[in-house]
């Protein structure tokens, strides 16, 4: 999967079954660099500033967007695809913002 120049391309809007009306958005991002301390810290700053609940999935593991240690423990490296998921108010822009941070990771 190649990274898109439009960070919102590939965004899916999926209402979840359990919580009626809750908006969930997901976007896959191919990492240009390892998800190490610096990008993890940037993800946390974004996640802490939005209302939506953010989660990053890598394979069968997932980490809350607000936990820098959990993000680093995902062990995601350059070339890996991670899925950014956000649920709740502002989910779409939250996903776009986090995805942009990851897509720019260095």
């Amino acid at each position, binding site marked *: 999967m190649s990274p898109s120049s439009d960070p919102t391309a590939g965004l899916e809007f999926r209402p979840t079954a359990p919580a009626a009306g809750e908006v969930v958005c997901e976007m896959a991002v191919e990492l240009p660099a390892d998800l*190490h301390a610096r990008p993890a810290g940037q993800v946390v700053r974004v996640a*802490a500033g939005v209302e939506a609940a953010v989660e990053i999935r890598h394979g069968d593991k997932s980490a809350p967007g607000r936990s820098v*240690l959990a993000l680093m423990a995902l062990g995601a490296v350059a070339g890996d695809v991670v899925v950014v998921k956000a649920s709740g108010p502002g989910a779409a822009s939250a996903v776009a913002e986090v995805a942009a941070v990851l897509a720019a990771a260095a």
Partner: protein
Amino acid sequence: MVQPVGIVLVSHSGQLAAGLRDLLLQIAGAGDGAPVEAAGGTADGRLGTSDARIRAAIKAVDRGAGVVVLTDLGSAVLTAKAVLAEEAREDVVLVDAPLVEGAVAAAVLAAAGADLDAVTAAAREARDVPKF
């Protein structure tokens, strides 16, 4: 320009604290963007803790945005608590967390410009987050 939160590393071992500081500079991007001082060992370089070292370290990393203090265990906690009680400052916080993991989490957040509450929360989280 927002000032960074400072981090103090307290250990019985000078080498351990200094080595951890090196690690934070390398992996967490700490340094100028997030000052870190090691306060390990006694004043004469033996294993143990020194209130003077801790006090000096707090002063060295204090940029006005608060300071987070992390310790290894035992008397490092006692000495740090005694220093903080003396300082009596709300913006110098001793966090109960594993030293290395807490320091890494704190440093990453501090280097990213987070405020004292966020840096403290990140350090505290280290108690619960599995490494793998």
